[in-house]
């Protein structure tokens, strides 16, 4: 006979476990989406010659880590800026009143792998180009990504700790339920022993009971997550546009359900085996 309290604790543990799986997918998408968006922008001083910039562009393109390098001249940068803000009359008016083009020529460098930006930034810093380079914005982007990564890491650690804590609680509660089942069936167990019942026949029902707790709690926690995900999915999409959680859940329906059921069964089996070893004498 399965008990409600045991199922509740098991469901809670698996609910947090599934939350961690979903959060992990979400965080991975968010970080890689940000990494996709970053590049290294090298801003040149106004007196830097276009030849010098184009020479540097060619040498950077020769680096194996570099995917492509885009040169945006002062004029092009101004044209892009104007086009971007054509509907903002204040900016347009301000630009018209300026005598000089305030924008700087820039090289936008895209790496093949986001992890290579450090190497490219080192190359630029060691090349003694201080005379022509105004600034390299890699450090600012790196800070944002590092901060996001550390938040994600910390959240994952909290999730793992919470899952372990609740898993232990679920094991203890299930263990107790199995122990009670063994006690309440002690007459039947002693008769089974007396008549020479195979050991697996005596122990089997309690292992199955543990697995049942895990399976039912796994399915139940998955069913609880379903409407939650559908409800929060549009809000999540505002922050991480690449992530449609509803779609993710539909696409990974069977694998997530399998994770839940396997993890739940694992917890239930451990509980049963410990209870049987301690309380079911053959």
């Amino acid at each position, binding site marked *: 006979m399965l008990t409600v309290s045991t199922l509740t604790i098991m469901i809670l543990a698996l609910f947090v476990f599934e939350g961690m799986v979903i959060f992990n997918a979400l965080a991975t998408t968010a970080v890689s989406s940000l990494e996709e968006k970053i590049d290294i922008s090298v801003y040149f001083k106004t007196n830097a010659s276009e030849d010098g910039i184009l020479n540097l562009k060619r040498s950077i393109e020769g680096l194996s880590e570099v995917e492509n390098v885009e040169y945006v001249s002062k004029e092009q940068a101004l044209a892009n800026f104007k086009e971007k803000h054509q509907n903002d009359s204040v900016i347009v008016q301000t630009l018209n009143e300026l005598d000089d083009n305030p924008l700087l020529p820039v090289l936008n460098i895209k790496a093949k792998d986001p992890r290579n930006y450090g190497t490219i930034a080192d190359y630029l810093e060691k090349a003694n180009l201080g005379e022509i380079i105004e600034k390299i914005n890699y450090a600012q982007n790196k800070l944002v990504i590092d901060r996001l990564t550390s938040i994600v890491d910390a959240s994952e650690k909290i999730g793992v700790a919470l899952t372990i804590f609740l898993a232990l609680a679920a094991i203890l509660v299930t263990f107790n339920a199995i122990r009670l089942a063994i006690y309440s069936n002690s007459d039947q167990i002693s008769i089974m022993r007396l008549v*020479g019942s195979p*050991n697996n026949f005596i122990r089997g029902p309690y292992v199955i009971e543990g697995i049942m707790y895990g399976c039912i709690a796994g399915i139940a926690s998955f069913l609880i997550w379903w409407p939650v995900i559908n409800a929060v999915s549009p809000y999540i999409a505002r922050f991480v546009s690449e992530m449609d959680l509803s779609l993710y859940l539909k696409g990974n329906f069977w694998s997530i359900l399998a994770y839940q059921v396997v993890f739940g069964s694992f917890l239930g089996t451990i509980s049963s085996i410990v209870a049987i070893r301690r309380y079911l004498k053959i």
Partner: protein
Amino acid sequence: MIIFQNVSKSYSHSAVALEKINFKIQAGEFVSIVGLSGAGKSTIIKLLIGEEKPTKGQIFFGSYEVNKLKSSLLPEFRRHIGVVFQDFRLLDRKTVFENVAFALEVEGRAQKEINELVPQVLDLVGLKDKVNNFPAELSGGEKQRVAIARAMINRPEVLIADEPTGNLDPFNTWEVVKLLVKINELGSIVILATHSKEIVNTLGRRVITLDQGKVIRDEETGRFMM
């Protein structure tokens, strides 16, 4: 053949249940083990069915050395032994038929075989007309006969009865004793642990007398003397 060879059992330094027990029981014997409460009768039974292990000594049952049996071999070993207790140990929610059939079901026997064997053994113990009754609907003597039927269903070589008449009135006591004698005559060893002087003296069979964990007397046609 059952052999107890220098068997001792102690639960702590101060709690010695059995001390240097030696006896042999041959095929077809009917042996009463007698003694006061705490003399060690039940401990001998627990050691014989492998429920506990001796602190010292060896116990042999046929080709089995019981004290060395691994738990994985215990079920097969126990099918050679039938056991009945004073408290019957029947399953209240099962009928007489189901209680007896349970011993075959746990072995995985086919339903057809169960349907053939259970009525035969219930006939042997005189309960053929009670197959559909629950234990609560039976007298003490009938309950004990159901327990004996369950113990006999596997045709064991030994039937151990631990105070089987302790909860019964005189009439039912003799019914059960007569049944044990009948089972013995059919070829099984019967080991009867009891503190009933009347039963032991009436049977006139072999008696092993225990006192404070030691065998103080072992007589072929013994009497209850304490």
